[in-house]
């Protein structure tokens, strides 16, 4: 399972301490499993998140591969000008 870190604004919605251990072979699958385990995060994920997988920033792609020991940071969706 990947180690998942949430930004502090989202972390306060759940009781567990980071890192969260979440399974998923892709970013999309990992986010689905995250919401199943922590339903309080459903709206936050629905409103849009970006992430990094093993230090690679992933802004949009839900098919980005996540490995068993990956480190995933999740933060609010950000956009540019």
């Amino acid at each position, binding site marked *: 399972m990947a180690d998942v*870190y949430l*930004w*502090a*604004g*989202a972390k*306060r*919605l759940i009781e567990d301490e980071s890192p969260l251990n979440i399974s998923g072979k892709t970013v999309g699958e990992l986010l689905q499993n995250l919401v199943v385990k922590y339903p309080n995060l459903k*709206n*936050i994920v629905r*409103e849009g998140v970006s992430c*990094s997988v093993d*230090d*690679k*920033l*992933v*802004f*949009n*792609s839900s098919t*980005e591969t996540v490995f068993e020991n990956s*480190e995933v*940071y999740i*933060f*609010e969706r*950000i*956009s*540019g*000008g």
Partner: protein
Amino acid sequence: MAFDNVSAKSFKVVGTRPERPDGIEKVTGQARFGADAYLPGMLHGAILRSPHAHAKILSIDISALENDKSVKAVVTRNDFECNLTGEDWNILENIMAGEKALYDGHAIAAVACSSLLEAKDALKKIIVQYEILPHVTDVEEAMKENAPVIREGSARSSVPKGMHPNIVGYHESGHGDVEAGFKEADLILEENFRTEAAHQGYIEPHACLATMMPDGKGEVWCCTQGHFNVAKVCAKLLGSDASQIRVTASEIGGGFGGKTAVFIEPVALALSKKATHPVKIVMSRNEIFRATGPTSSTSMHVKIGMKKNGKITAAEGTFKLQGGAFPGSPMAESAMCAFAPYELDNVRSVGWDVMCNRPKQAAYRAPGSPMAAFAVESIIDEFCKRLKLDPIEVRLINAVTEGSKSSYGPKFQRIGLVETLEAAKSHPHYAAPIERGVGRGISCGFWFNFGGETCVSLALSEDGTASLSVGTPDIGGSRASMSQIVSEELNIPYEKVRATVADTATLGYNEISHGSRVTFATGLATIKAAQDMKKKLCLRAAKVWGLDEEAVYWEEGYVKPAGPNAGDHEPLSIADIAKTMGRTGGPIVGHYEASPEGAGVSFATHIVDAKVDKETGFTSIERYTVIQDAGKAIHPSYVEGQFQGGAAQGIGWALNEEYIYDKKGILQNAGFLDYRIPVASDLPKIDTEIIEVPNPGHPYGVRGVGETSICPPLAAIANAVSSSAGIRMKQLPMSPPKILEAMDDNNG
């Protein structure tokens, strides 16, 4: 043949400075911008706008127009979809008010007439009854308990319960123990900072020409940073299908993020549908200022602790951004970018998104980052002064490198901040003596850069030349860069490649040209499309020679047999294969479609010399140097232009540009006479130095360059001005009256 991996590290065309493909059209006035389109029977649209900052719309009486033969169509909110939610609803609410006018300039109704004069006259006959409501335009005021409520229920789920309804977003990130870090510090500094809203200031107004038939089929010509997004938004707002609305992007006279948003196209389509004629809308400058997005205004608090040797022990910042009457200010970006240049054991960043009675903010180059850098880099400058430390050395001591944990979470991959600082340290500008009365300012800046949905098509012509179709409007020279990439990959001259921004019916969806993504993402797609074409060229040659695919290979623009066993065939050039392709299997076209990630973040360091006239408060920028990591500069002249453009816009933002509202919430300076952007005489020669630390996420090492260049200027200029004026400037813009006021306050 393996074409999936690119190892081109030495380039023939990439990195050179060929002539720009749109140069002649633009200097001779032939280039067609948004307002340059005409159709037979075309009508002119005009939009009635609210004269109030916040008001309930009691009624809209259009009866006076019913017998007016000059009026061909009138639309109000009732002419748009009524079941939208989320950001779709926000966009609709912004382009045509529903129950309330939310800011001065909010669209209320629109008309279409045979002439613009008639349309403007018709607007005067529309009678709107308003109930004026209390308003708020200041971010701090809007957060107070008794502040007028813009709209209930707009808050994102991250906002803690019990907050004022105007607070619609909350972000917090960081790591370590900030309080413990402050205890380790030899000196702690904290300050409040404020910046005003600044408009992107594109010279070309928003303009479109739209046709929509009663069956829902539409055509739009418009200036935009993202025509696929225009099609998507128009379809949603009008209840049509995106595939039925074909959008063509015109040449663009500046966007800088401001043309990522949609304002007039759905209105023109709705008018056209009613009038069954094409409708053209061109916004006036007054409308642009009042109703299109400036960037957010901010109120920020930053606290940093530092050891005497310059090492930062802890950093903390709160960034409050108002985004107009809608959610979406880039407060998370402010919070995440603020401390990104520095490796910090203890850091905490908080962002608040706040609604005010102002126009919906729109992206402006690296949204959120320049303001945050202003606050953080000003404090760092103050440390350098108080601890008598060199500003570049302090930044080098704390600079992030590959493997550093970022303030927002993940570790950095390969980055070039240290390289920009080292280049700044050895730059002649930094070594030059500082004249009496002049202040020198330094600042670093950071931006993420993006990838996103991208699709290109590369077609071979029978004469061996190539046509590249891209779906990202060219806002910074991308047609030249893409042509260089094709030339590099296919070994054909740059002049034999034509890159075109294709309409929405021609390619798959392309995300907006934003986030400094085009040279990265469209460039990557172009490389892949060229590789696809080379593979097809090899297949074609193999077919002609009666060989298997593996028996041929590509080298220097030719397909060659792979060895003696493949037979004695003369190598075939692209032109050879192209000439006969109609008889050997048909057209040869390379494609690529993907959502590439791995854009590669970037950093910049700016050096500014500024001189403040202490009698008048006027600031002159004496010298300016931009040093930025581009990863790999495809066309260095365009990259330098991006660097200079960011600095020039930063000079305007830092020194003069601001939205000024009166007590009624009415914008007082909605024109270039009163909203002062820099003109040529305000600017020094802006020197540039391109640093190339390759982005590991791109085959050529490209990083975006369009946005990072506006991250350091506000702080670098503020540091220079503060040094020259002898007082720390904590509010932007640093216009003459504000500098005089600050000096007066300082003198007691």
